[in-house]
């Protein structure tokens, strides 16, 4: 048995601590920088297609929110768009019916509505596990969809919600026809959400959730309630999805029933699996690749693009089950280990 005095133990602990902290901050900065660089590259490469890029950001927020409950807590859901759509409708209704046209207030409305929808979905979903849980999530998204369809005096029903008017952002920047303002607004929102989520996923709470995903019995033996923690994560997830919904309503100035659809939920799950679950970068990578691929292939071959998307998915699931980001990360760490470097 090793004999260590308390002072060397404490000193060792302190260096480990500062090394770990430096590692976290470095990775956060890399992530932040990567988003800024990709966003800038998108702006330079596709100046005529900023609407698509903004939509990618909105969907990325939806996929991030899905990652929180599926990737970090292990909840199987095909109904995440219920939270996204709630945010979109809340932001849209604030403007179209209440004349609240400030984009920041609309976004706050979307965040709040998403969080409330997250709370409701969380409470219902956690009544079941596994396959029944998945079916509940589908039922929920259809209920939200049908509710929005019937409440057409508020939502415009199947015609969509129109009449959204926007004040300039901070009273300075008009939302222009080319979508410059909306794009910058989206990039800033994404950076804020990403930074906050990085903090959340490596907080004690984030660690607790990862534990719940692996073994709820173990977590209960620690005296923690998995149920409470997952509902809390659902509320956070709802706020993130609601942000995406609000961004979508603000950038397109209409909200369609699609925002609340099963299809949208399923696509989000596909993007998450494509990028890699349980990692925020995975969610972002999956969204960007799926949506760019979809856009590119559907333009190149309007009849068979879905076949191509299907083929891509099969290849990823069969040959890179951890998703594109997860697999690349594994490859890099293997290379690092063989060159003698060790991870902390």
């Amino acid at each position: 048995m090793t004999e260590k005095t308390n002072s060397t133990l404490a000193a060792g602990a302190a260096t480990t601590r500062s090394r770990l902290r430096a590692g976290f901050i470095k990775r956060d900065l890399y992530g932040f920088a990567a988003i800024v660089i990709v966003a800038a590259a998108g702006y330079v490469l596709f100046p005529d297609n900023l609407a698509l890029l903004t939509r990618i950001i909105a969907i990325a927020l939806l996929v991030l929110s899905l990652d929180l409950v599926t990737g970090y807590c292990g909840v199987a859901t095909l109904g995440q768009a219920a939270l996204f759509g709630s945010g979109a409708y809340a932001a849209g209704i604030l403007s179209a019916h209440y004349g609240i046209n400030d984009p920041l207030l609309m976004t706050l409305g979307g965040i709040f509505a998403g969080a409330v929808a997250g709370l409701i979905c969380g409470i219902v979903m956690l009544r079941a596990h596994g396959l029944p849980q998945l079916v509940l999530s589908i039922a929920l998204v259809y209920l939200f969809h049908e509710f929005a369809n019937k409440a057409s005096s508020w939502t415009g029903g199947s015609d969509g919600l129109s009449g959204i008017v926007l004040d300039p952002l901070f009273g300075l920047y008009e939302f222009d026809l080319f979508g410059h303002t909306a794009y910058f607004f989206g990039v800033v929102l994404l950076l804020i959400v990403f930074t906050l989520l990085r903090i959340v996923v490596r907080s004690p709470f984030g660690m607790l959730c990862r534990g719940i995903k692996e073994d709820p019995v173990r977590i209960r033996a620690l005296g923690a309630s998995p149920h409470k923690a997952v509902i809390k994560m659902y509320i956070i997830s709802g706020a993130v999805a609601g942000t995406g919904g609000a961004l979508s309503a603000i950038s397109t100035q209409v909200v369609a029933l699609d925002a609340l659809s099963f299809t949208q939920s399923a696509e989000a799950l596909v993007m998450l699996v494509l990028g890699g679950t349980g990692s925020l970068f995975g969610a972002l990578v999956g969204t960007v690749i799926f949506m760019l691929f979809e856009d590119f292939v559907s333009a190149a071959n309007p009849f068979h693009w879905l076949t191509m998307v299907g083929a891509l998915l099969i290849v990823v699931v069969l040959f890179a089950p951890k998703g594109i980001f997860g697999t690349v990360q594994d490859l890099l760490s293997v290379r690092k280990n063989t060159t003698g470097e060790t991870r902390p």
Partner: protein
Amino acid sequence: MSAVFEVINLKKAFGGLVVTNDVSLSMVAGDRVALIGPNGAGKTTFVNLVTGALKPSSGEVRLRNEPVTRIGPTGRVQRGLVRSFQVTRLFQDMTPAEHVGLAVLQRTGKSAELHGNFLTRPAVMEEVYDLLERLGLYSLAHRKVREIAYGQQRLLELAIALALKPSVLLLDEPAAGVPQSDTGRIEEALANLPADLAVVMIEHDMDLVFRFAKRVVVLAAGTIIFDGLPADVTKDARVREAYLGSYANAGLNA
């Protein structure tokens, strides 16, 4: 001395099948009890009843004079009743430091905090490293669990349980599945458990039982048939009968 842990007339029946029949047990701080019994004696059911995973048909469980029979499993852990698992239940992708850190944070009510990585919290990590050091796991603190030996994983189970600062610790076969070469480390760790902790160990390995326990309780067909000193257990006629044969009949005359 007053009892820290009491089980009073605990009974559990699944339909007509009585699996735990009128079991009573009382422990004071510092007790080292080994709970033994042949397969199917109802040891697992007993653990599940005591920890709250199962609801008893009748009877009571008390922790430090507080009845906890109606309190769920997590509430009992928070009140100081902690268990370990027969087969390790650890998170393969996490490190020992993270496991123990999570337990410390949970005990101090900080596991739901949304900010700050606990690996960078001095107060938490001091306790974590201290515990890992005590169990000889310090050098593995930041390795993934999947990379460490099974014997070390068993020690980590103990570290997690101790991080919760229990007053009663239920150890479910702490040396199960550990290669012979590593059992010494486990025994050493068991011998160094805090003196004021009341420990119940479920174990099949009689050598370990005799070295560890100051008191042996034998369960057969759901009933306690012996409760006394380790030296007396092998002489007891009912215990011999339960282990060596005709224990199938023990349920009839219970």
